[in-house]
């Protein structure tokens, strides 16, 4: 006759010792606890679990235990709700060659009854788990990373060529708060590249227009519209509310001002700039790598640095560069991977080449060097003056 459930439980009890919650609790409290594997379903786990426990639902036990417990001699305590599923799971581990497996007597129910400490995980809602499932599957992101993104605040300077794709993807990624700084209105000539805007929103403030697009894509994202130009008076207050700056400005004074504000508030700055077929991108981590002025001590004169409005820009270039910025911003927020800090990436769309240049921290940098006099300067006047006073004026 085939064994009944009771038979299976009884057979497992023969080989798996049970441990009383009080004994586990005192060992956990003294920092000498075993590896605790909780084999309940996700919904049960979410209600609370033993402190420090690792969640492996019973259905995944055989496939995932190796990643959590590479050493088969390691002491493992298995727990579930009442101690029966965990007993059978412990027996499975025993069969798999784990030599030191015990079962929590009475499971989580008895643990809780005896008033031992309980950890309640901060969890994603079912809707969030579904929306961000492809992120959660990536080990470097996972639920923890996704929650980090949901708690993050990104400030986008400009909701234009770079800001449009960056804002779209950051919103899709679930960045909790997105600030959009732009005093400009949507113009028909923007729509060739500024894909977050639409034809029927021509004339609307770009931040407001982007907010509508983001609301349609991911209503969970809090969008702060800042419909003004960044200046010396508002930049610190603005930047200090956010975790990362995504610089998609269209002028040098704003870029130099942001670079200094990034240093003053120690907020990482994700840089990109574009012209015609060429894009630049880098990451400036305050005092941990070069800053924008280490790379470009002075802006070029206007004829060496025409704007996109004067010289044109391939629309799709904005998508590539804005999304490189979004990628780097997410990496900065999650603290994963190698960012472009210390490197300038140059993308030439016409030649379809990516070139990397090394960017060093300049010991004489007027913004981040040891002798720097860091203050918010009048970059409008400076940028206008730098080019004119020492430029030979030879027209190209």
């Amino acid at each position, binding site marked *: 006759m085939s064994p009944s459930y009771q038979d299976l439980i009884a057979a497992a009890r023969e080989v798996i010792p049970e441990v009383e919650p009080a004994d586990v609790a005192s060992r956990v409290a003294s920092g000498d606890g075993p590896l605790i594997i909780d084999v309940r379903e996700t919904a049960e786990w979410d209600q609370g679990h033993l402190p420090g426990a690792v969640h492996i639902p019973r259905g995944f036990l055989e496939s995932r235990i190796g990643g959590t417990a590479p050493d088969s001699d390691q002491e493992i305590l298995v727990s579930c709700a009442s101690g029966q599923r965990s007993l059978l799971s412990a027996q499975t581990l025993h069969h798999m060659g784990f030599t030191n497996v015990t079962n929590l007597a009475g499971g989580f129910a008895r643990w809780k009854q005896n008033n031992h400490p309980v950890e309640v995980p901060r969890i994603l809602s079912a809707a969030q788990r579904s929306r961000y499932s492809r992120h959660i599957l990536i080990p470097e992101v996972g639920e923890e990373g996704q929650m980090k993104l949901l708690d993050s605040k990104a400030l986008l300077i400009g909701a234009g060529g770079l800001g449009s794709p960056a804002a779209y993807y950051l919103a899709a990624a679930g960045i909790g708060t997105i600030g959009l700084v732009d005093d400009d209105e949507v113009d028909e000539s923007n729509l060739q590249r500024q894909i977050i805007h639409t034809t029927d929103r021509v004339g609307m403030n770009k931040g407001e227009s982007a907010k509508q697009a983001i609301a349609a894509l991911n209503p969970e994202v809090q969008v702060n519209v800042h419909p003004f130009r960044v200046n010396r008076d508002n930049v610190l207050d603005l930047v200090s509310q956010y975790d990362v700056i995504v610089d998609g400005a269209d002028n040098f004074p704003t870029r130099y001002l942001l670079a200094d504000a990034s240093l003053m508030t120690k907020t990482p700055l994700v840089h990109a700039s574009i012209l015609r077929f060429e894009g630049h991108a880098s990451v400036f981590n305050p005092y941990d790598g070069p800053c924008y002025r280490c790379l470009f001590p*002075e802006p070029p004169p206007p004829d060496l640095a025409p704007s996109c409005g004067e010289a044109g820009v391939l629309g799709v270039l904005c998508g590539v560069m804005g999304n490189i910025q979004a990628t780097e911003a997410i990496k900065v927020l999650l603290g994963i991977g190698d960012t472009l800090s210390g490197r300038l990436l140059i993308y030439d769309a016409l030649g379809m080449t990516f070139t990397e240049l090394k960017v060093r921290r300049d010991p004489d940098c007027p913004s981040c060097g040891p002798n720097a006099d860091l203050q918010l300067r009048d970059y409008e006047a400076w940028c206008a003056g730098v080019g004119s006073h020492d430029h*030979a004026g030879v027209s190209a």
Partner: protein
Amino acid sequence: MSVTVRIPSPLRPLTGNAGTVECAPGTVAAIIDELEANHPGFRDRVTQDGKLRRFVNVFVAGQDVRFEQGIDTAVADGQEVTILPAVAGG
């Protein structure tokens, strides 16, 4: 024996719109001399009083010459020289 010099968009009108120009190896200064000889006006755009202008970044094989020997930085056969002014567009 040649090095490839990458010309930024704003200077391309001087090089007949060429994005890259081949020059002889030597130093950054010698390459600028050669560019001036073939594309008159080039030198003044990137140098002043014999020095690179502050707003012009020159990289040899990916390294900023400000942290090497400036305009006297050597450029070996096959290396790439990148002339790079900042771009503001966004």
